């Protein structure tokens, strides 16, 4: 547990210093933990656990857009779990349930817990369709077609800078739309 969290902190420091691959690895590493916690939270609130992926994606977006509030001298896990808890409470509240989220939901994952398969999900995908065309195209090219920033720029005859701006704006407006639901 400690080791895992130290590893996250190290990866996040690398990410902040500009290492995109480390950032990718970090997000991949935290996702199963977030997924397990979201499933537990939903189950406890009497909700079907199959909505957990929406919550996971919601948390990942918040982590991404709020990572400037992480203090690089502090461990990463408490920061991550605070964001995750907040998003889970928010999601349960939107589903109209009284919410009791146990801090331990995030502090521990049982070893050997089956990692649920990633399923294509509703909320982010639905909101993606409502984005301005350029943001949607860039997001889809990078996320779904796994094209690089450079390739995406060529494909749409845009500058790389414009692709980066459209990508970030797309992610930010996705988050704003999810919040506005």
């Amino acid at each position: 547990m400690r080791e895992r969290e130290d590893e996250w902190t190290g990866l996040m420091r690398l990410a902040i210093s500009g290492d995109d691959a480390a950032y990718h690895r970090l997000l991949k590493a935290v996702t199963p933990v977030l997924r397990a916690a979201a499933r537990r939270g939903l189950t406890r609130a009497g909700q079907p656990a199959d909505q957990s992926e929406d919550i996971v994606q919601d948390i990942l977006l918040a982590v991404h857009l709020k990572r400037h509030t992480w203090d690089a001298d502090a461990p990463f896990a408490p920061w991550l779990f605070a964001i995750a808890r907040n998003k889970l409470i928010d999601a349960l509240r939107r589903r109209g349930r009284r919410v009791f989220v146990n801090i331990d939901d995030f502090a521990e994952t049982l070893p050997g817990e089956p990692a649920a398969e990633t399923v294509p999900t509703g909320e982010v995908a639905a909101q993606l369709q409502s984005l301005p065309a350029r943001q949607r195209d860039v997001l889809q090219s990078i996320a779904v077609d796994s094209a690089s920033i450079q390739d995406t720029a060529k494909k749409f005859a845009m500058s790389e800078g414009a692709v980066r701006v459209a990508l970030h704006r797309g992610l930010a407006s996705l988050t704003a739309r999810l919040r506005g639901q």
Partner: protein
Amino acid sequence: METDQLIRALAADNAHRARPVGFVLALGLLLAASVSVAIFLTQLGVRPDVMTAMRNPFFDLKFVVTLALAIPAIAISLHLSRPEASLRGWGWLLLIPVGLLVAGISTEMMMPQRMPMMMRMMGKNSWNCLTWIPLMALPILAAALLGLRHGAPTRPAVAGAIAGLLSAGLAATLYASHCTDDSPLFVATWYTIAAVLVAAVGALAGPRVLRF
């Protein structure tokens, strides 16, 4: 969109850097404070006998108290903009202005007074105080909430209330130079009510404005 795909998009956006919350908050406070100063200069102005008043330690104490509220409240707001933060270890800072007021009141009690206690407490400007402090605090509160919105406060009502205290503290610092009531009893009564009003507005606005 599958989660792996979303992660790919997030990683591709890693180069984007948001400005630190402290920077955004400071900029917002500076802009909003200039609005409040404009309100102060056009509607209130510094009291005419300010040169004599400055020799009265109770006049000076008003600024010490209001700044002793505003400055810790700014620090606490910034702290609460981080998701894992709570008031623990920070809340006691808000006792500093309270302690200063208690010390001021005790000192005044030990001195010979021309006016009875009740008159000093009621003063002549209680209504002004309750009007102008919240009024000059509102632009600052709006800016403070927008600054905190750039962060990730997970206790939005508390963060909103602290933002209210910080804006009331700054507004009261302006108002103190206009008001001719200098008794710590007056300050402890009316400034406190004004600050609590603004803090309540902040606490109500927080959960609405500070969701992320």
